[in-house]
């Protein structure tokens, strides 16, 4: 059942992405992409070939739904999806990361052993009982997302200032009845506390049979509210449907039967299926791999502890940590090209190299600022620039930047000072000392 729901969501997501023209806007038109550290070798396909991974995703999502060549399809989908995400981190979203992880998990699960074309065509034998750990693994991943999102909310901006929710909520003052209420600070704080409480504890209520139905009602309610108020795409739907995994096998059985009736088949399913049995996978290396995966998932969100300074300002160890809806950051970045030979300096028109999304993301994220500076250096190095009747050969360019950033409703502060030549800094995972300190 989970396979069908998730497949449908994947299909929906891919179709939505294409239909909004984002393939062209995000991947075909830009000249430069912000690769991930260690994954810069991931390059986009030339021109309209970029549609290819999306077409593959749509086809494989269909295969996943019907359960035909399932393992092949989910693997291919995972590869395409992750490939697309790895091209440019300007577009990083926690829920894309979540989808990637889910697909990865699903590769290893026997999700095609029941109610699938693979079974109908005798590609694999039917299996009514799945090992309990497979379901547990998915539940773990979902729970992790919620729980870490909750943990991340335990900070003073969120709990005491009600920010950034305050900014986002006040913008909705035209909603009838509720609109005026959303203007109030206490409302933002109430939303913040409720959201934090929800994220931290919802998993436990979903796990307990007694509270499950009630908790699920909250899941639907919570995500519908976020879907209505914030532009977060398919994420609410992914969560609403994914959390169905917490329900009992009987529940899923009933759903499947409904689908079958929908298609007019009268062959009734065997009863008492998909019940769980073995708590652990049989083979040892599988246990080990899963253990490692779980450990990895538990540790990665905490890597920010290795860095000094304010996490939201420096953004060191920010991604891949389920920090959702936590920041409202707006920046303005002016980059300067300095010709060391003549000492002359030029402002760089960012729009010449970056799209608005990229520029907007780059201005507040230190790693991207460095990447962009390095790109500018390599772009200008050795270039001959003509201005009027004068000619300059740029042999040794330095790149400086003056950047101001506003974080969670505070007035903007200087983020990067113009005195640094950004090309002299290494782009790595070490703490970035060249950022201006954050003042409360």
């Amino acid at each position, binding site marked *: 059942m989970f396979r069908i729901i998730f497949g449908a969501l994947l299909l929906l997501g891919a179709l939505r992405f294409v239909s909004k023209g984002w393939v062209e806007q995000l991947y075909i038109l830009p000249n430069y992409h912000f690769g991930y550290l260690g994954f810069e070798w991931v390059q986009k396909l030339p021109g309209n070939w970029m549609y290819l991974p999306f077409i593959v995703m749509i086809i494989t999502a269909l295969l996943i739904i019907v359960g035909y060549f399932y393992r092949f399809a989910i693997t291919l989908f995972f590869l395409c999806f992750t490939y697309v995400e790895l091209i440019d981190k300007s*577009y*990083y*979203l*926690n829920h894309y990361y979540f989808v990637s992880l889910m697909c990865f998990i699903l590769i290893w699960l026997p999700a095609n052993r029941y109610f699938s074309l693979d079974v109908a065509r005798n590609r694999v034998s039917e299996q009514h009982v799945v090992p309990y750990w497979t379901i547990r693994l998915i539940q773990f991943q979902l729970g992790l997302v919620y729980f870490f999102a909750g943990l991340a909310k335990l900070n003073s901006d969120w709990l*005491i200032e*009600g920010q*950034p929710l305050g*900014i*986002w909520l*006040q*913008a*909705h*003052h*035209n909603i009838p009845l509720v609109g005026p209420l959303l*203007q*109030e600070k*206490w409302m933002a*704080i*109430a939303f*913040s*506390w*409720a959201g934090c409480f929800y994220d931290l504890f919802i998993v436990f209520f979903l796990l307990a049979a007694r*509270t499950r139905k*009630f*908790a699920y009602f*909250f899941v639907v309610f919570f995500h519908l509210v976020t879907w209505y108020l*914030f*532009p*977060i*795409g398919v*994420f609410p739907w992914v969560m609403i449907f994914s959390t169905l995994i917490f329900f009992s096998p009987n529940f899923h059985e009933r759903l499947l039967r409904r689908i079958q009736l929908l298609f007019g088949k009268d062959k009734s399913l065997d009863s008492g299926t998909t019940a769980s049995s073995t708590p652990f996978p049989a083979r040892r290396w599988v246990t080990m791999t899963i253990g490692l995966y779980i450990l990895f998932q538990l540790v990665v969100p905490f890597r920010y502890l290795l860095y000094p300074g304010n996490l939201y300002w420096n953004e060191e160890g*920010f*991604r891949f940590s389920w*920090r*959702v*809806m936590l*920041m*409202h950051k*707006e*920046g*303005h970045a*002016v980059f300067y090209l300095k010709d060391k030979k003549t000492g*002359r*300096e*030029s402002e*760089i*028109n960012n729009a010449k190299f970056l799209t*608005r*999304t990229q520029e*907007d993301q780059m201005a507040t994220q230190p790693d991207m600022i460095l990447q962009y500076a390095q790109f500018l250096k390599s772009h200008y190095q050795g270039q001959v620039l003509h*201005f*009027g009747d*004068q000619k*300059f050969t740029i042999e040794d360019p330095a790149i400086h930047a003056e950047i*101001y*950033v*506003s974080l969670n*409703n505070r*007035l*903007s502060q200087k983020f990067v000072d113009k005195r640094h030549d950004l090309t002299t800094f290494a782009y790595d995972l070490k703490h970035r000392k060249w950022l201006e300190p954050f003042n409360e």
Partner: protein
Amino acid sequence: MKRLVSLLLILAFTLGCNKDPDDPKPEFNKATLLSNISGEIILPSIAQFSADLNNLSAVYSQFSTDQTQANFVGVQEAIQTAYLTWQTVKIFDFGPIRTNGIKSAIGTYPSDTAVIASNIASGSYNLSSLSNADAIGLSALDYLFFKQGALNELQTNANYLTYAGDVIAKMVAEFAVVTNQWTTYKATFDASKGTSSTSAFSEFVNEFNRDFELAKNAKIGIPLGKQSLGIQLPEYIEARYSGISLDLLEESIRALQKVYNGVGFTSGVNGQGFDDYLVHLEKEQLDATIDNGFTAIINKTVSFTNTLEQEMAVNIPQLDVLYSLLQGHVIHIKTDMTSSFGVLITYQDNDGD
């Protein structure tokens, strides 16, 4: 469980309440702001610009039948009047102005005088073609009517006179479409007060920022050499031939300040604008900073007595001061103001990270 949830919710509510015992927020309504901007600024400025263009068209025909010095000056004045009104209209590069490509068709500068000259020489051209993008609009008229010996050329070269007429006719025709479409688009604009990047309010805030940045870069920065290793580029000066560049800058900043404050284009009445929104958000200080910033830029601009080109030859330090004022102001409106409104600049999904 139920009890626990409600308990915590109550706790959260009371905590919130205690922190901020009902402080009255100044009344503000985004819908009022939008209808004030569209009704009191956009529509009147569009009507004015449309009237300016029609007047330009009329004085041009008068001149073409009776090519006197006085009629020539009449055309020159009509061009300058339209150029000044345009400083308000160009802020609103969304809706009909965007879909009809008006900002680039009318406001692109500098003109490519070589293309204009070759068009005139050949006498055959399609002004809508991409290759003529820099040979049309107000900037082309500035060249055609203000360059050295313009009157003589107009009187002696029939192609030159026709070309000027065609440039005017193109603007009149295209802008008539905008005037017409805005009468129905107003309702759409007024109703679109959401926070998504495609809502009219978001587009409006974004274009407001963009227009300011464009004024900073194109009107001052680029000619001054800010993007060319300090080498001045006088050929990039807006309205170089008439020399009204600084008047246009002043008018542009005034227009932006009025939009910021929600001051009616013809009425002069101060209605709801971005300033009221900031005050509603309890950011009076930021509001004052922004309003004073606009005034400081205007005061600096009017302190120059010569044309921009003349000032560039002798008065670089003071122009640098003006440029820094513009530069610093971007941070207030683009970073501080825009982030306070919760408006998204980007167009994709976002989960706030």
